[in-house]
């Protein structure tokens, strides 16, 4: 019945929204002020699409009623990921994980490699995993995804429950989720993230009740509920399959790229070196013929392992030929020197140089000492012609490493391979949210950056294997992070009218209100019905108020993906940061607020002076007040002194 009402209101909202936006595009644009009129209509269109994607999500809202019985004899590993969190916190979580009723093995994945934590784990009979030696300084660490990928190689449970260091699991967490895996196609069961250290007023907007609720339930209806990094159970087989498929794909790509780059690399090496040196000329010719061979065999569909092995052997042969030629020349020189000595005063002792053993030739020919190393561009190509993935700690990387939010990227790839996901709407872990604005902003920035990275690297709209609905579900989440740019227009438009009397619409008449107000009302009604009266206002406030964070996320992620610039990635600290200087973190919002207030004052003065119209002034002053109310959440966030369980009591189970 609820679904019926939701669908009715979605339909109504979309019809009213299209009616309004179409009218705006066709009949209301003030082309004299196109520089604000066009950005505003684009911003409004963005918002309509956002609402439509939200409507599509909740259209299929899926309420599950518990999992079927768990598969018998399932083996489970519980992973607790940590980097630098407080040891007490980690151990609290680990000991709670040990008490999970379903048989399982608990592991602490310590990316901080702390001996004290190892000791605590051993004393409590908890497994402890830290990075293997393969993760040396020459390979990327991939943060949490790397930590998980490393642990996947060291453990062997069929299912894996992943918990952040602060997420205290309920003993029933596996009882209530494992059963979904009796469907062989299910790869992921995600449960909500709930935070115990958040007062009912939620000044930092931590409880994502709309997301861990109607949004994930709606995505679940489209088989697109996604992995959120913690409080989720994953099927190892699905992850491993994913890792293997990616490994093959990436290797193919790298071999193809290497072969197509080899021509120009060899050409460049010929140009850069003295082509008259017979040794170099000969080496380059042999490398060239080896790569041409490989191209032919690749086209013929031969296995990459065979092809790369063959290239290696041919190149190795060429290299040891080079070394032998060097040694032969050297011996001839030594002979001549000895002949000189018969008359001269020097002596060259007899030496083993005359018969250099093959092992030495081999050593001199190895990758690090090879004379071919002198031809750098060629060596780079040859290194790519391999199936070992030398640039990574391990060839198989099940958790995606293309984004700092490995979770979303991984579940999207799982969906593209045909696996199913489940969102189980029951709080089965109690975690800690940031308690200060600085940490909160860092966390939001990271989520947004990761999401945009995925959008730019593997845009869901064009991923093969995803259904139409899945594409839009993933895209919807990414779309919502573009709101930062739109917010600037929503702030600028009223300021421009109040200061200069320039309206982006041709007139503020009944035509406008008759189309705009019904859409707005339907829109708010939709949120109210979907949220069943839960407070969604905080989330709406933050989605607009954090516009500088969203913009920064988009620009840094784009620079990262397109130009390889670092993101400036930071682990979200779990401990409260000092509040000093919080004002500086939100200076763009302060500037915007001041501009809005000044504009309202000037606008009213202009009204008195007869320069602005009464209706336009009223609408825009109302708009300014709306914007200021939105930003007011940041005042509360800055003044928030952290969670005090006594002052604003919570009914949930506190654990510390």
């Amino acid at each position: 019945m609820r679904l019926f009402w939701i669908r009715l209101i979605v339909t109504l909202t979309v019809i009213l929204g299209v009616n309004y936006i179409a009218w705006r595009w066709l009949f209301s644009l003030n082309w004299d002020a196109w520089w604000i009129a066009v950005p505003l209509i684009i911003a409004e269109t963005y918002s309509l699409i956002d609402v439509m994607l939200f409507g599509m999500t909740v259209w299929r809202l899926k309420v599950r009623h518990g999992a079927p019985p768990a598969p018998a004899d399932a083996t489970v590993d519980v992973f607790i990921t940590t980097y630098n969190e407080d040891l007490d916190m980690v151990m609290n979580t680990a000991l709670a994980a040990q008490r999970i009723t379903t048989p399982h093995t608990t592991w602490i994945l310590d990316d901080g490699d702390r001996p004290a934590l190892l000791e605590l784990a051993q004393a409590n009979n908890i497994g402890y995993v830290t990075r293997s030696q393969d993760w040396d300084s020459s390979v990327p660490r991939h943060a949490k995804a790397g930590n998980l990928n490393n642990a996947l190689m060291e453990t062997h449970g069929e299912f894996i429950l992943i918990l952040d260091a602060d997420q205290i699991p309920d003993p029933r967490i596996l009882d209530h989720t494992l059963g979904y895996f009796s469907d062989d196609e299910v790869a992921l069961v995600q449960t909500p993230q709930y935070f115990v250290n958040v007062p009912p007023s939620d000044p930092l907007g931590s409880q994502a009740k709309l997301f861990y609720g109607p949004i994930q339930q709606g995505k679940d209806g489209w088989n697109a509920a996604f992995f959120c990094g913690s409080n989720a159970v994953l099927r190892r087989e699905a992850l491993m399959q994913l890792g293997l498929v990616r490994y093959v794909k990436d290797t193919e790509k790298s071999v193809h790229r290497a072969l197509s780059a080899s021509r120009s690399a060899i050409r460049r090496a010929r140009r850069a070196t003295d082509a008259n040196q017979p040794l170099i000329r000969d080496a380059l010719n042999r490398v060239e013929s080896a790569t041409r061979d490989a191209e032919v065999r690749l086209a013929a569909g031969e296995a990459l392992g065979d092809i790369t092995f063959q290239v290696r052997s041919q190149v190795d042969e060429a290299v040891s030929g080079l070394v032998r030629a060097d040694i032969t020349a050297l011996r001839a020189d030594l002979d001549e020197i000895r002949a000189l000595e018969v008359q001269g005063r020097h002596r060259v002792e007899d030496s083993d140089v005359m018969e250099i053993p093959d092992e030495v030739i081999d050593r001199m020919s190895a990758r690090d000492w090879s004379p071919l190393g002198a031809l750098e561009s060629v060596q780079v190509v040859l290194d790519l012609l391999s199936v070992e993935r030398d640039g990574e700690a391990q060839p198989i990387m099940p958790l995606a490493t293309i984004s700092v939010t490995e979770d979303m990227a991984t579940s999207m790839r799982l969906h593209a391979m045909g696996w199913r996901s489940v969102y189980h709407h029951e709080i089965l872990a109690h975690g800690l949210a940031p308690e200060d604005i600085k940490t909160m902003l860092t966390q939001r920035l990271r989520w947004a950056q990761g999401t945009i990275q995925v959008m730019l690297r593997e845009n869901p709209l064009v991923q093969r294997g995803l259904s139409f609905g899945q594409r839009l579900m993933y895209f919807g989440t990414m779309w919502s992070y573009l709101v930062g740019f739109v917010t600037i227009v929503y702030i600028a438009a009223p300021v421009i009218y109040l200061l200069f009397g320039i309206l982006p619409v041709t007139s503020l008449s009944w035509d406008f209100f008759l189309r705009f107000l019904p859409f707005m009302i339907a829109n708010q009604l939709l949120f109210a019905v979907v949220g069943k009266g839960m407070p969604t206002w905080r989330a709406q406030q933050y989605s607009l108020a954090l516009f500088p964070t969203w913009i920064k996320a988009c620009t840094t992620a784009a620079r990262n993906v397109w130009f390889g610039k670092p993101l400036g990635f930071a682990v979200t600290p779990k401990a409260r940061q000092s509040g000093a200087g919080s004002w500086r973190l939100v200076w763009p919002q302060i500037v915007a607020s001041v501009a809005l207030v000044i504009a309202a004052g000037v606008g009213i003065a202009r009204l008195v002076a007869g320069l602005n119209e009464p209706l336009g002034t009223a609408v825009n002053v109302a708009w300014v007040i709306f914007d200021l109310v939105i930003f007011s959440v940041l005042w509360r966030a800055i003044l928030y002194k952290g969670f005090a369980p006594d002052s604003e009591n919570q009914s949930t189970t506190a654990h510390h």
Partner: protein
Amino acid sequence: MELSHRSADGYTIISINGRLNMVSAPQLRQYVTDVVAQNDPFVVIDFAETDFMDSSGLGALVASLKVARQAGGDLRIASVQPQVRMVLELTSMDRILKPYASPSEAYQR
């Protein structure tokens, strides 16, 4: 690779800055030939700034030794870095070209 030389008491010190490999090796031989022709037939190759040598580099070193001997002089080596030392030891070339601790020690006695 950068080559430079300076005169010392009765001999010339040639410094190799960079990697002595297949591409740069012929340069060394030419350089030694020029130094021997214009200055001293007695030279020391200073390896203090040489972080790498491959088999071609080794070959060039021996060819340079020949050039110096033919001119009635000698070629010695000094201040070798770990990788270069490994190459010399592995090929037993250290029995022919003994690495001295510093250029000034090469012609003491």
